């Protein structure tokens, strides 16, 4: 089973990479972009026996740093 994990910076945490992407988009002439936040997308291929609690623990222990990041688990 393919599991999608989205790791994003918490609100209020400055994102220098997002800012640089934003500047680059403006440099390409794209107007109307208000803000850019960059995150990470991780795809896990797991056995059906892997529980929601296991997935949550994977995110909390390694995939995200919960000091600065939120995570969202999506079972397609």
């Amino acid at each position: 089973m393919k599991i999608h994990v989205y790791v994003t910076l918490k609100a209020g945490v400055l994102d220098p990479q997002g800012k640089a992407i934003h500047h680059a988009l403006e440099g390409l002439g794209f107007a109307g972009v208000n803000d850019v936040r960059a995150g990470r997308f991780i795809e896990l291929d797991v056995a059906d026996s892997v529980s929601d609690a296991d997935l949550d623990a994977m995110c909390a222990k390694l995939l995200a740093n919960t000091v600065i990041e939120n995570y969202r688990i999506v079972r397609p």
Partner: protein
Amino acid sequence: MKTAVIVFPGSNCDRDMAVALEAATGTAPAMVWHRESALPGGTDFIALPGGFSYGDYLRSGAMAARSPVMDAVRAAAKRGVPVLGVCNGFQVLTEAGLLPGALMRNAGLNFVCRRVGLTVANNQSLFTSGYAAGEAIRVPVAHHDGNYFADAATLDRLEGEGRVAFRYTESVNGSARDIAGVLNNAGNVLGMMPHPERAAEPAHGNLDGARLFAATLGALVG
């Protein structure tokens, strides 16, 4: 005096750290591979060196912080054994939960590699007792992810408890409140982005870092 340097795949300041420790103690440290589950018996001081453990994959220090040896480091820190993390070692300590906060991409996005000015914000700790309070020193940095972040309440607590060891005196990486090094609550764990082991012998052109090792390890010898 038994010291240990933890070596991760991708560590690249481990030998510099070993040279600095040997200069301060007269004895070469044990080099402990990250797969070990125990430290040599009687280890008095642990150093986590700089580098790019696991290629900085996922987040700087994230994978190294979950290495088998880190359970032993965590247990030693809890017993009061001094732990010094420099650069990637600082990142590992925050990822391991031994220090608060996180080290994010430098605000200017550039890898910063130069000697920078610091002030000694707290000279009452084991690690900083060789400096005068508020003393200005110069120590090299070399990092891409040194932008210290913690929420405002944590920063207030760190400052209120004297747990900011060093601050930058110039714009380096966007760190919150110019923090360059922080201590844990008990004062036996220090993480810092600047490299004291690169300011530790005359050929480096600067001995400000050697004073950290001399004071820390001298105090441990008693």
